[in-house]
């Protein structure tokens, strides 16, 4: 599988990886390339640095679809920001039996906290947004910059976990938290738990027990619809239509995180389509297998020495990068799709993004002729 094949044939491309690897930019550059090749593309991004809107040449970037000025052509690109809270709110409105039910849930203070904390709901809502875009007839290719999650797998695992939660006793227990303890009959146990929860309540200022019960009662009314939806979404993620691409950078900590992620994804039966490495020095020039050509003829000896020093350092750095990446590629069991050299990884304009596209898709540079509006 190559990146060319992915953007030609898949419906969803998920960029996963830790924060700080250039995931947002990579996703944007892939989306731009797909649009230039004629696909009707959407890029759903989290854009932590809030810089992508300038790079894409947009005046605003929010949860509404905005058209990226790529000039005329069969394809197009819309960019939008992932808004977890809003997606969850919309889902509640859609699934609730009545408008009053919906408002009761949305107004619950615990919901307001929980919509962030409830079994990876942030991740689930990202997936939910993807599902909506895939269903949208305006798009045939959706590129997703996944939220930087402490355990990035939460994102992909979100539907399954949410289903497990809905099917578990947890909801029933939440209505009456003291029933968690084995000795539901034991008054001592109940007393202790109540005092613990009361402590937490005092500390958070939330009438936790009461609001939890209210919340659960309200949300139970929508679990049926939610369950169906979650199952659909899970199916989409695991299907052939979705490609998972790991984005990383040759840094020990980042690749270690990415390697753990790859292992976890593998264990969940999710196949990794490939790996993109940002900020990688070109092995063809500085790799262990590349020859040391000696200083170029005609440079002054002092400069020749400095050039040799510089070359030696770049070789050291390249060797370190290769050592760092090797175990990741082994665990991912997936091909290296692209290596992007340093500096090219952080474009600040649409033209720069297209240049980055040239590194991601070295085989087909022809599309870069379409005139870009700035």
């Amino acid at each position, binding site marked *: 599988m190559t990146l060319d094949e992915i953007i030609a044939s898949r419906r969803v491309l998920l960029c996963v990886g830790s924060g700080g690897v250039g995931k947002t930019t990579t996703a944007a550059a892939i989306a731009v390339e797909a649009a230039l090749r004629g696909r009707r593309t959407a890029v759903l991004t989290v854009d932590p640095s809030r810089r992508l809107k300038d790079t894409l040449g947009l005046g605003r970037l929010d949860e509404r679809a905005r058209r990226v000025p790529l000039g005329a052509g069969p394809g197009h690109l819309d960019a939008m920001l992932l808004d977890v809270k809003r997606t969850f709110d919309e889902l509640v409105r859609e699934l609730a039996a009545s408008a009053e039910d919906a408002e009761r849930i949305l107004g619950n203070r615990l919901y307001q*906290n929980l919509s962030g904390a409830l079994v990876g709901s942030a991740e689930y809502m990202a997936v939910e947004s993807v599902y909506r875009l895939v269903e949208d007839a305006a798009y045939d290719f959706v590129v997703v910059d996944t939220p930087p999650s402490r355990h990035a797998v939460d994102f992909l695992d979100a539907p399954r976990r949410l289903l497990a939660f809905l099917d578990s006793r947890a909801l029933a*227990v939440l209505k009456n938290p003291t029933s968690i303890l084995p000795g539901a009959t034991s008054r001592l146990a109940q007393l202790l738990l109540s005092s613990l929860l009361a402590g937490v309540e005092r500390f*958070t200022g939330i009438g936790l027990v009461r609001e939890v019960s209210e919340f659960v009662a309200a949300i139970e009314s929508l679990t049926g619809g939610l369950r169906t939806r979650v199952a659909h979404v899970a199916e989409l993620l695991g299907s052939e239509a979705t490609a998972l691409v790991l984005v990383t950078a040759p840094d020990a*900590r980042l690749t270690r995180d990415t390697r753990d992620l790859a292992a976890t994804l593998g264990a969940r039966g999710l196949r990794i389509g490939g790996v993109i490495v940002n900020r990688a020095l070109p092995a063809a*020039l500085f790799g262990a297998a590349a020859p040391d050509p000696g200083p170029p003829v005609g*440079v002054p000896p002092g400069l020749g020495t400095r050039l040799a020093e*510089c070359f030696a350092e770049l070789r*050291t750095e390249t060797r370190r990068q290769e050592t760092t990446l090797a175990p990741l590629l082994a665990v991912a069991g997936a091909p290296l799709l692209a290596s992007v050299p340093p500096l090219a990884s952080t474009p600040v304009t649409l033209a720069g993004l297209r240049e980055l596209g040239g590194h991601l898709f070295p085989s087909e540079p022809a599309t870069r002729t379409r005139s870009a509006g700035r």
Partner: protein
Amino acid sequence: MSRGNHRPSGDPKLRLARQRLVIVTGKGGVGKSSVAAALAQAAADEGRRVLAVEIGRGGLSRLLGVEEPGPDPTPVGRSLSCVTIDPESALGEMVHGMMPLGVMARRLLQSTTFQIVAAAAPGLPEYLVLHRLSAFLDAKRLGRPRHDLVVVDAPASGHSLPLLGAPRALGALARFGPVADFLGRADAMLHDAATTAVWIVTTPEELPVREAIELHQALREDLGLTLPPPIVNAFPRRRFTSRDQGAIAEAAAHAGAHPYLVGARLEVARQRDAVEQIRLLRSAVRRAPVRLPYLPGGTGEARGLTDLTHAVARQAGFGT
């Protein structure tokens, strides 16, 4: 290595000598953990008893050579120990402390429901982390503080704001009682610039610098913290003079893509970019950042960390 870093030795850029608590934060991937490890090691080499703290699963303990970090300090050198604060097990400790029967506490902690409720309680993990930190600072042995200096490898920017802001955010909820008292003390501790330093680490690259500037603003304006100058890690040295660069361009016109010349131009571009980023950072925070050198071999191995530790020690005015 320190060619561009001259400074009067009486005025160290990294004020590390009298601090008791150092919190290192920054965007992921900028070498935050390496800088934290080097700070801890440099202070320990100076004879201070240092505790290096990582929160959750970080890179700090591994850098210091601890494979399985635990909740109790593990010695890693003559005056350096390392410890992990895991917010989840900190929650466990709190529950165990509150519930007299271990079996009951365990049962409660295993319950998904309890985990959800605990996660929904705003600020609880942050509170627990601060509680552990302050216990380490207060720990005494033979009447002296057990640790002269506590160095924290804090969560990346996005997560460090809730941690540092927890005393105020939670203080607004809990007004009286022991929790409120603790929060007041924690807030005072974080705001005491004489003993506490919150160091923002960045690399001289656009996105990390941008995030460092935002974090600096948020910590200063929203939380009212007095911050030391940020640390710019992996700053590339200026190897090629302007004349060199002219000669390189000329040679490239003849020799084409000679790896030496491609490499030199890459380094020059990186260096130029780094200088520009430092300028942006400097004008945004109105302080000259502290520079730590770029190490081609990385800091993942003992050698690299030693080099970085020496650079930190120089900037802190140690051993001069």
